[in-house]
């Protein structure tokens, strides 16, 4: 079984405003659900959503003929909080924690927002495919990683935070990708590392990590301002669902593993710490 954890981000710069309008998929993302050839079995599940607006509150919706209804489907509200000096409420996590909504083979999702004229808007979601033919993504369950952390390696704790500075794109799209070892080259050769979560020095709507160990698919990391949401993002995601959601990255792939970011309002160079636990043994998952 080849599971795949990935995301879709959509955006529009300078909204028309006043009614719902469509967002376009970001570079290399697609709003079409992959085709599994099994129309009546869920192809995957949307597990998280996030959204951001550069200057105002807004509504967002994700819908299709087979996702909710073909009018507004799942319709959510985006708060704007100008008293937060960091990001005015970007991102907000819009999905219930323990509800995963199925998506269906080859269905095309629509993402739209109803906002204020001239604002920039982004909406994204995490999608998990349980059986994605051709994916070689390495995802571990919570229990395996928890045991590895508690045991340590040869009498040492091996939980590291690796810093990488990421600049989201200036126009609402993904920005320049940065190698995992560009700013902090401390992963020990040949070892596998479990990515537990992350913290950043400013809110960013969504970071992504892509590399050989993710099957070259972007795994999303919403940059919420509250580190308690993000520091154990993957551990919690796995624990809630009792299913593998913890990305495993081999240290030898650090130069080919890239991190990028996307945000509606050009937050600039943002320091991101990725929390890794070194695994004592090679992960065969």
């Amino acid at each position: 079984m080849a599971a795949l954890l990935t995301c879709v981000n959509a955006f529009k710069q300078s909204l028309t405003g006043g009614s719902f309008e469509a967002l376009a998929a970001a570079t290399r993302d697609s709003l079409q659900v992959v085709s599994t050839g099994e129309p009546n079995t869920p192809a995957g599940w949307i597990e998280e959503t996030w959204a951001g607006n550069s200057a105002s509150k807004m509504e967002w919706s994700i819908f299709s003929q087979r996702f909710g209804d073909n009018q507004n489907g799942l319709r959510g509200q985006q708060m704007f909080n100008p008293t937060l000096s960091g990001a005015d409420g970007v991102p907000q996590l819009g999905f219930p924690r323990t509800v995963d909504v199925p998506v269906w083979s080859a269905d095309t999702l629509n993402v739209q927002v109803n906002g204020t004229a001239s604002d920039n808007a982004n909406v994204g979601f995490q999608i998990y495919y349980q059986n994605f033919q051709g994916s070689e993504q390495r995802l571990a369950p919570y229990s395996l990683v928890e045991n590895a952390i508690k045991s340590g390696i040869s009498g040492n704790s091996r939980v590291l935070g690796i810093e990488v500075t990421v600049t989201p794109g200036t126009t609402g799209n993904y920005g320049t990708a940065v190698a995992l070892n560009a700013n902090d080259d401390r992963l020990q050769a040949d070892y596998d590392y479990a990515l537990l979560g992350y913290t950043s020095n400013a809110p960013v709507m969504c970071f992504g990590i892509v590399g050989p160990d993710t099957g070259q698919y972007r795994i999303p990391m919403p940059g919420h301002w509250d580190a308690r949401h993000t520091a154990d993002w993957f551990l919690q995601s796995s624990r809630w669902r009792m299913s593998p959601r913890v990305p495993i990255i081999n240290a030898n792939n650090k130069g080919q593993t890239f991190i990028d970011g996307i945000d509606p309002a050009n937050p600039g160079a943002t320091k991101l710490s990725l929390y890794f636990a070194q695994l004592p043994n090679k992960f065969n998952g």
Partner: protein
Amino acid sequence: MSDQQNETTTRSRSRKSDEEVTFPLRLVKVETGETHWDTAQGRWVPVTHAETGEPASEYRLLATIDGVDVPLGSYNAGRVETVVRAQQQAQQSDKA
């Protein structure tokens, strides 16, 4: 307190009534001075925007109280300037 400090204090606040004292506020744009390690160069370098190359900066709201600038808040420069551009665009549309 020196004469100079006394003068600064008098200048930087004014008394409207017995109950209310007001202080001047300033919004200034400053570089954050952040640095990070550059593995390729093998040294600490200033953090810059990956696309524009500009140094990381922020807007700081400062209140002058008793001659001292007290930072009350800081705002991400990119986010503020994105709103500025959007407002300029909206105002131009209104005029058209």
